[in-house]
Structures are given as C-alpha cells and as structure tokens.
C-alpha cells in the first residue's frame, strides 16, 4: 500500500520508503523534496500563475529544467482530474530525470514533478502521476505527511510546521481562529517518560505568555478518524493584561488522547471547542483511507 502525501492542496501516493526531506514555501509557491534512505527521489514544485500565462510558463520551465532540445521531446500527458497543458518528458537514457508539468485551474497553480530515474521503471507515468490530485477546492483541505494526517477547513493556511522524528506538529490559521495538532510516536515510550496530563500541561505551557490555565485538567475523550480514545481536556484564558489584543482569541481549548492501536499520542489545541472537535475528527484520515482512492 502506497501512503498518501497531501501538502498545500496537492496529493500524491508515494512508495512507503520515501519520506520528505525538504518542505518549503506556502500555498502560493513552494517546493517539496522526497527521498528514500539512499538518495532524493522526487521533487515537487508549485507556483501560482494566471491561466492564460500557464502554457507559456510550462514551456519556459521545461527549457530551464531540461534544456531546449530535451524540451522539444516532451509529450502531452494529463493525469486523471482537471489538469491543463500537462506535458511529460521521459528520459530516454537513464539515469536522468523524468519531468512532468501541468496547470491546475482549481487552484491556479502550475505543478512540476521531477522524478530521479535510475533505470527505466515507468514509475512516473505508471504510478506517481495517476495518483496526483489537486484538492484546493475541497471545503476540507487534506494534509498528510509522514504518518500524520488531518483535514482542515479551507481556507486556513498552514502557520506552523515542526516535523521532528517521532514528534510532528502542524498549526493552521491565525491567533484569532486557529488549530494546532501534534502527534507523538511511539506513545508507549513517550508516556513512560511523562504521563498524559504532563504532556498536555507542557503543550499548554507553550501559550503561557498570553494565556493562563482556566481550571484543572479533566478527563474526556477525543474522537479521531480511527476511533474515539479517552484522554484529558483543558482550557486556557487570555491574560487580563492582553485584554486589549482583540486579535488574540480569548480562550483556547486543548485536548490530549492516547491511541493504543497505533501507539500514538494526539495533542490538539484550538481557539474554539467546535473547531477542535471537527479537526480532531479528521486526524488519521489517510491511514483510514488506506489503499482506496476515496477521501474521507
């Protein structure tokens, strides 16, 4: 089963041994590089363009990436879904690079995929491109990186990303309306180091500059895409001295739960409880979808 990678509106299915090496930029433009344990495998670059400039920009980009002669050897290829001006270059004598460029009118972005091919394996046209999709018009924007996945109401831009080994944090929105999710693995090791209440308290302490705890932590449960798990909940209240800062949410809701099946800890923090519950309910959607092509 090839896991889904979903980032800034686009999604792909990549071999399980490939992981992100570099994730840069924002929704408008950015770059992602995926590698296995040995070497870089796939580069994804996205750039916002006007539709009428897309065809010329694709041609120009091919020239920059491959040179003028190789750019003439491209063929039209559009993966399933709405992609315009899709063109594919297949390196005739690997090792080399297979390059695909296309324009998505859904998001108004040009997407470029560069696959480092060592021998002719047909992975680009046979496996990578058929799984390519642009979810930018989806009311819930899917995100999936490493083994953490969630869906966030669209538009709510990515504001924070920390992708440490075993500790992944993604934050969305702003300080008025936002949500932050953290997944810790392996949970059994993490819980031996610190119990769940301390994990949640430590997470809440990150906001101590502007917020103070409102009451004690209480037992609760957190429903994620893979089930409902018991955990803890807490609240934070904006400190009085920051009362004039209307751009900071007056309250923060936080919850933590342990998923014993996947051996993961989930910590979620949001500016309102409904947002917390809605977003938490989508955590693990990519793992639930598994091999099927249907998004939750």
């Amino acid at each position, binding site marked *: 089963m090839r896991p889904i990678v979903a980032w800034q509106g686009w999604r792909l299915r990549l071999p399980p041994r490939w992981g992100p*090496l570099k994730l840069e930029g924002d929704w408008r433009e950015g770059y992602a590089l995926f590698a296995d344990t040995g070497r870089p495998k796939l580069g994804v670059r996205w750039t916002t363009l006007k539709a009428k400039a897309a065809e010329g920009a694709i041609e120009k980009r091919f020239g920059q990436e491959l040179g003028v002669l190789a750019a003439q050897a491209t063929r039209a290829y559009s993966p399933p879904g709405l992609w315009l001006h899709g063109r594919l270059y297949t390196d005739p004598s690997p090792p080399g690079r297979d390059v695909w460029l296309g324009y998505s009118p859904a998001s108004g972005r040009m997407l470029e995929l560069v696959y480092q091919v060592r021998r002719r394996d047909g992975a680009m046209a046979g496996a990578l491109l058929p799984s390519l999709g642009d979810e930018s018009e989806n009311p819930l924007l899917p995100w999936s990186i*490493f083994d953490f996945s969630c869906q966030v109401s669209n538009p709510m831009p990515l504001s924070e990303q920390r992708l440490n080994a*075993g500790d992944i944090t993604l934050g969305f929105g702003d300080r008025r309306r936002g949500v932050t999710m953290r997944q810790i693995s392996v949970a*059994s*090791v993490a819980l031996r180091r610190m119990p769940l209440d301390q994990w949640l308290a430590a997470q809440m302490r990150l906001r101590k500059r502007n917020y103070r705890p409102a009451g004690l932590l209480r037992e609760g449960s957190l429903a994620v895409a893979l089930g409902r798990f018991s955990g803890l909940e807490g609240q934070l209240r904006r400190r009085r001295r920051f009362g004039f800062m209307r751009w900071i949410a007056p309250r923060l809701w936080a919850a933590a739960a342990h998923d014993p099946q996947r051996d993961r800890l989930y910590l979620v923090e949001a500016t309102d409880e409904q947002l917390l519950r809605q977003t938490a309910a989508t955590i693990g959607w990519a793992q639930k979808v598994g091999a099927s092509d249907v998004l939750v």
Partner: protein
Amino acid sequence: MTVEQSLAVRPLRAVEATVQVRDDETATLTVPLKQSRWTGWFFKMPDGAHKKFELDKLGLFVWNHCDGKTSVKQLIRKLARQFQLNERMAEVSTIQFLRTLGRKGLIAMSLQSVREQPEGK
C-alpha cells in the same frame, strides 16, 4: 564515504556490557570502566567500577541489533516495521542514537561490506 556506503556499515557492540531487561521492555546497560593510561598516574579506579546507561524500548531494540551482522539500513527498516514508523523518521532517530552510542564508545562500525565494494561504485 557515500550515503549508500554509510548505511551499509554494520554496528557492532564494542564493550562487554551486562543488559538487565525489565518487564516494561526498558533496560539498564552496565558497562565496566577501564582505567585509561594517563589518568592512572593520578587516580586509582576502584575494582568493579562501572557505568550505567538507561535504554528505552527503541534503544534496546537498536542495541540488540548491533551485532555486526545487521547493517544500518537493515536496522532502520526493522525499527520502522516494528514500531510502525515512517522509514525517514526511523532513519533520523536511529542514526542519531547510533552516533550517541559511538561517541560513548559503546559501539564500533564494521566497514567490511563497504570495503568489499570496488572503488567508485
């Protein structure tokens, strides 16, 4: 050394350590201390002096596979499979942990498989 070659080396336990595994799958590694040549001029180390290292579940898994037969790449794949981790995540944490073990003098790296490869490959 290329990335491929560095992943092909085989970590090997370099000390005679006693491993005491607890019920919760954590372990204590007891390593006898050796008197170094220069400090011996000033200090006399007591007999039976030792150093203890605490290993968690993942650390114990890595330590058990430092047998001189398992390459770093194989170790990463085994760890990722055992604890349902992405290989990239497992790679980062395993290499960091192996570096720490190496710095403490607990493991050495067997370069046999690397040397067997012809130059330039």
